[in-house]
């Protein structure tokens, strides 16, 4: 037995080492964000003399953008779940030849590059006055959220027995009432998974932020970082502090909702 436990300890050590290598850039981002201001990166491996100057600057320059990103991401979650949940239920429980067509459409939609959507939405938004607007970006971000949310929710709802809803139907509830009162509460976990991922997709969006805004009014934080990166970076600590702040949703998601993530990754890809 000591032999296997020793071997296991070695595996754990190797695992920690792999993780350290893979997550080094993330550590470096945090480290660099705590360094004094400047356009060079003379930071040592440890922030021995940490300063929050980068964060102060990031918050004063990018605070508004962070708020914009939160609003857009939250709006995308609400819109995506409202649209996706009934559809996912239909695709999992209704028997119709349209189910296959719907699924095919969702899969094909994954092949369409974001730039194609940006091209078309730009010309449409220009006419509709939706450029530089939060609703415009929310709708655009739904292009990544809705197909994903439908697939995630459907893969869960497939496991719901039809008898569940039938019982309520016998009591006279309409299909929609039964859906709201029974299916949605039971699907809570998958709704959380879909919502978390949709939030993250929308929060991470850069392409639509870049193409569907033309002036400073509405500027998500991803665009703020991009503009920081410009040609010559002047304040690495502020850039990195903004990067850290923008990474918070991902980190929160990973720590708080760990069990949902692998489910999301697998559900969205394979099904």
């Amino acid at each position, binding site marked *: 037995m000591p032999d296997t436990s020793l071997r296991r300890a070695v595996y754990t050590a190797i695992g920690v080492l792999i*993780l350290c290598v893979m997550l080094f850039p993330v550590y*470096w981002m945090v480290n660099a964000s705590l360094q004094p201001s400047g356009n060079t990166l003379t930071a040592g491996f440890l922030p021995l003399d940490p300063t929050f100057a980068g964060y102060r600057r990031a918050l004063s320059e990018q605070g508004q953008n962070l708020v914009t990103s939160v609003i857009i991401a939250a709006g995308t979650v609400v819109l995506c779940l409202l649209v996706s949940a009934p559809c996912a239920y239909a695709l999992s429980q209704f028997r119709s030849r349209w189910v296959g067509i719907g699924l095919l459409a969702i899969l094909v939609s994954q092949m369409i590059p974001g730039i194609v*959507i940006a091209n078309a939405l730009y*010309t449409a938004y220009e006419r509709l006055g939706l450029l530089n607007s939060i609703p415009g970006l929310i709708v655009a971000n739904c292009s990544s959220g809705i197909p994903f949310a439908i697939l995630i929710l459907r893969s869960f709802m497939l496991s719901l027995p039809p008898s569940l809803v039938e019982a309520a139907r016998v009591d006279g509830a309409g299909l929609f009432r039964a859906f709201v009162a029974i299916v949605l509460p039971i699907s809570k976990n998958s709704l959380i998974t879909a919502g978390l991922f949709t939030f993250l997709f929308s929060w991470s969006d850069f*392409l639509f932020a870049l*193409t569907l805004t033309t002036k400073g009014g509405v500027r998500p934080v991803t665009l703020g970082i991009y503009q920081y*990166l410009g040609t010559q970076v002047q304040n690495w600590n502020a850039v990195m502090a903004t990067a850290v702040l923008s990474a918070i949703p991902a980190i929160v998601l990973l720590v708080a909702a760990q069990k949902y993530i692998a489910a999301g990754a697998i559900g969205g890809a*394979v099904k």
Partner: protein
Amino acid sequence: MVHAPTLTPTTEKSGPEPARRSRWRHHRGEDLTKVLFVLPAALAMLALFGYPVLKNLMMSLQDYGLRTFFTGQAPWVGLRNYTAVVKDQLFSQAMVNTALFTIGSIAFQFAAGLALALFFRRRFPLGGLLRSLLLLPWLLPLIVSSATWRSILEQDSGILNRTLTGLGIIDDPVPWLNSPSVALIAVIGVNIWIGIPFNVTLLYAGLAEIPDELYEAGQLDGATGWRAFRYITWPNLRAVASVLLVLGVVYTIKVLDIILGLTGGGPANATQTLATQSYERSFIDFKFGEGAALSNILIAISLVFAVLYLRATRRAIDE
């Protein structure tokens, strides 16, 4: 809901026998409700995917430029946009870069992902926790990763060059993102880093599906180590692997954020791909017709892989 009694019920969609009679009465209203379940999503998909694809097809056949936004006129020009972008001297370079970027990214993501997935299949303390923390690079906004790697790869003061010179591996700092000869390699490297976690997760799930009995039986026949991988693991992992590889192509071929964040297509167009070119035509040069033509070429390439993808996933969908 419409309560229209009907004497000619069509095919009953679902439901157990006892509920039938009462449901016939509701049938027409019920069908309407069912349509309403799908309608918002159907409209959203049409607006967000159907319309853009059609619009791009049309724009690619039009002289759709800056003037169009003022005059509203976009004259038809046939295939001239396509010939213009294909004849452009950047096109062949963008094609080669797209191919190198896609193949290089996927080959290494997959290989590293498989190695790590196999490693984490060995049960050891903290294995699950370490594996889930490994997902972080995949969850970060791409522009955050780009910014971070910009600082790491910075030529004069970036930590990578400082470390490599400190260790005596290189004499002069490598211009990772500033030299046309290494920029593409650096960009591919960053994309590999981003893609590994996803590959690990899917391959790990695929490995977990392989029943232990197969290995136990294999052991009796002397299939251990490499032979076990060759004759048990790999054949059983093929379905997941093919989905993953094709999905990887479809996603990687259209990558834009990372390249824009790291190099913006430079230096000297060394990291231009079809996607970055399409972006530049549309949103820098305001030649939407040419941008659309390029993105349609991108879709056409993806479509080839889409067929493979659908064939690979059909089993998973049908269930």
